[in-house]
């Protein structure tokens, strides 16, 4: 111990701080801060980027108290299943208190990244006016704001570099928010407004792009037609990430030819997306940029037939990431497997959610082809018509490097399409082979056996999504007991109950959160858990058919429809709406 102390005093603080500068991952920084008091103190004053995976695990005051020099904040609000309409809109996750607290305490905020949070125009206005060095705003799956809020950002953030809006629900106020960027604004590097539904001032956009010489990423919305995009791209040949708007024109027209020529000049484009509206016959215009493309997202483009997709993809030999609709078909995936040898991430989304046009879907065949042709594959999201254990076993053998594996059968309880058995063995093979697996979503007919495998083999697993699976509490217990690194567990419509919930209550302190809906847990068990674990917030969402009178206390045996629990340092949240009960 003496030696240690001597060594520590050998390094002056400035040196340690300099060393800490090289630590960028928040996990590394968290680890470093636990070494000793002086390192904790040093680290907290030097930390500029803070990541908060659950906005209710801490509060703004504690953030500011511990990290007074924070410049970049990432916050996540609603639980993941909110994406699928399982959480009411006004559940919470309002960013306003955070912005307000940072304003009052003189925080020099430069970057704000929000996911599944409630963002009002007032929040955006306060943000825009309070932080003179504000540079970057990234909003993913957020709601609550309108184009008026965007206008405030555009008008006031003089050094704005990044405005990135991904899949948000934004109310369009028909204002001219784009025109609000002053002529003096030349700092934009990234502008993504693909999710906006309304018209934009195309002339203003053109002038904005022309004066932002550092612009690298531009993703427009469907209201920007092909002709306009062509003119804009002439002013931004340096672009490396392009999201088109409406890609519809007569393929033989002058405009289409001009577009092809302009794109030929954009030699830095590596990422392509958009096609929010597309005439497939216009696609050849993008062939010039396909050769160097590493990322392609056609998942918002309905109505491109498999043949046209194949023709396009055959030009993309360097593709590392592909997001596509299942209209590509197994045959199309075969073409991807033959062409895209560098592929690391594949997402195949369902094109027809109502099962009317089954011919469009993909099956286990497509996945097997991909696994055989793309050995670097490490991230998968695959919506499919059917699956087999044999296919999954083959995939596991071909691709042992999966970090993320999410399989979603369109029928949530469909068994092996050939043997009619549950898909336990298939997923078992995946977890056994992929030793680095961090995220897993299972689907199809599954018994407790699959969870035995997961608990036994998925040592690095951090996030697990379960739906319509399992036979008994044993399933959930296998997972809770086995997966030591589990951080997020979300379960719906599965027969897991109180015995599983209460068997190891301390486990939840090692996790970020647990979601259980339409399972077998009762009110009494949730109350017991809440009483025994004061460091957890156990919330019940009480709505719909399940609704119980607020005045009466529900029977302990009453089944709970939706429960969300999470560890927290700050006790029950004070902004919970009426239908959310913290036990």
């Amino acid at each position, binding site marked *: 111990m003496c030696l240690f102390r001597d060594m520590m005093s050998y390094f002056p603080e400035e040196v340690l701080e300099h060393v800490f500068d090289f630590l960028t991952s928040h996990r590394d920084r968290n680890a470093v801060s636990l070494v000793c008091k002086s390192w904790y103190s040093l680290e907290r004053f030097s930390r500029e980027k803070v990541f908060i995976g659950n906005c209710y695990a801490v509060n703004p005051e504690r953030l500011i108290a511990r990290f007074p020099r924070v410049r970049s904040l990432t916050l996540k609000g609603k639980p993941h*299943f909110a*994406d*699928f*309409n*399982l959480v009411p809109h006004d559940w919470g996750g309002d960013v306003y208190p955070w912005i307000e607290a940072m304003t009052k305490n003189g925080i020099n905020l430069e970057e704000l990244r929000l996911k599944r949070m409630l963002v009002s125009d007032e929040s955006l206005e306060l943000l825009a006016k309070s932080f003179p060095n504000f540079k970057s705003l990234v909003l993913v*799956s957020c709601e609550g704001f309108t184009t008026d809020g965007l206008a405030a950002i555009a008008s006031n953030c003089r050094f704005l570099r990044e405005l990135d809006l991904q*899949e*948000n*629900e934004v109310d369009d106020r028909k204002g001219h928010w784009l025109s609000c960027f002053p002529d003096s604004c030349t700092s934009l590097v990234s502008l993504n407004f693909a*999710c906006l539904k309304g018209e934009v001032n195309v002339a203003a956009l053109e002038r904005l792009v022309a004066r932002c010489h550092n612009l690298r990423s531009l993703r427009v919305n469907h209201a920007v037609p092909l002709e306009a995009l062509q003119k804009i791209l002439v002013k931004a040949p340096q672009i490396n990430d392009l999201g088109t708007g409406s890609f*519809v024109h007569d393929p033989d027209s002058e405009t289409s030819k001009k577009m092809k020529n302009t794109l030929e000049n954009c030699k830095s484009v590596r990422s392509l997306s958009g096609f*929010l509206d597309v*005439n497939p*016959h216009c696609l050849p215009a993008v062939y010039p940029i396909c050769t160097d493309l590493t990322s392609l997202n056609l*998942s*918002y*483009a*309905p*109505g491109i*037939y498999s*043949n046209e997709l194949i023709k396009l993809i055959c030009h993309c030999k360097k593709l590392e990431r592909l997001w596509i*609709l299942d209209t590509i078909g197994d045959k199309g995936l075969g073409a991807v497997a033959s062409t895209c040898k560098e592929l690391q991430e594949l997402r195949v*989304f*369902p*094109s*027809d*959610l*109502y*099962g*009317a*046009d*089954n*011919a469009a879907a993909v099956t286990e065949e497509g996945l097997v082809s991909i696994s055989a042709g793309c050995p670097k594959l490490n991230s998968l999201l695959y*919506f499919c018509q059917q699956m087999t254990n044999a296919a999954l076993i083959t995939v596991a053998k071909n691709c042992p490097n999966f970090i993320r594996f999410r399989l*979603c059968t*369109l*029928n*949530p*309880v469909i068994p092996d399409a050939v043997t*009619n058995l549950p898909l336990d063995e298939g997923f078992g093979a995946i977890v056994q082979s992929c030793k680095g697996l961090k995220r897993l*979503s299972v689907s199809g*007919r*599954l018994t407790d056996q699959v969870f035995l495998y997961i608990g036994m083999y998925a040592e690095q697993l951090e996030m697990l*999504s379960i*739906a*319509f*699976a*399992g*036979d*008994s509490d044993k399933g959930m217990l296998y997972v809770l007991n086995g997966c030591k690194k589990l951080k997020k567990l979300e379960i*719906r*419509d*599965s*027969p897991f*109950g109180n015995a599983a919930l209460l068997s190891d209550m301390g486990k939840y302190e090692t996790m970020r959160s647990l979601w259980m809906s*339409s399972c*077998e847990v009762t009110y009494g068990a949730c109350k017991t858990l809440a009483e025994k674990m004061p460091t957890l917030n156990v919330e019940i969402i009480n709505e719909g*058919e399940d609704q119980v009178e607020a005045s009466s206390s529900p029977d302990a045996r009453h089944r709970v*429809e939706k429960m969300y629990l999470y560890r927290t340092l700050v006790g029950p949240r004070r902004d919970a709406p009426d239908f959310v009960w913290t036990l």
Partner: protein
Amino acid sequence: MAKNGLALETELRLGLPGGGGGGEKKRVFSDMISGGEEEKAVVAVVGWPPVRAYRRKIGGGGVGKMYVKVSMDGAPFLRKIDLTNHKCYSDLFVSIEQLFGCFGIEEALKDSENSEYSPIYEDKDGDWMLLGDVPWEMFVDSCKRMRIMKRSDANGLQAIDLLKELGKKDDRSEN
């Protein structure tokens, strides 16, 4: 989920065929389901397939997608085309020509006398109409299915007589 019997159709449960073992805790995929009906039952489940609300509005069933059957005389299979994915008749013909691997359908519009094909469609009233007379939007609104007739199949009849024949056939099949 509601416990009353009426909601049973929408309750998804798991289990082996025949509903063996496990007691009440097991969930069997609705007993109300019999092959082919499964897709409808899946629709009844909230939040499945797990696709973000934003995506649901974009592709697949979002805003008025309109798939109609297209039959081509002499072709062994019918195809389906999404009318909302086209902006005009020319676009539509290009797609049809690609699907069936044939050419010259668009000529039918310009020169119906000499063209090899007669593209017709069945409208909401059940009448068979020649493509191209009405504005595109009106056509998309009223088209139920399409047929590309070969003139040679018309057996010497003028197109208009053939359409009348078709109309009669449909009346009979409805009775």
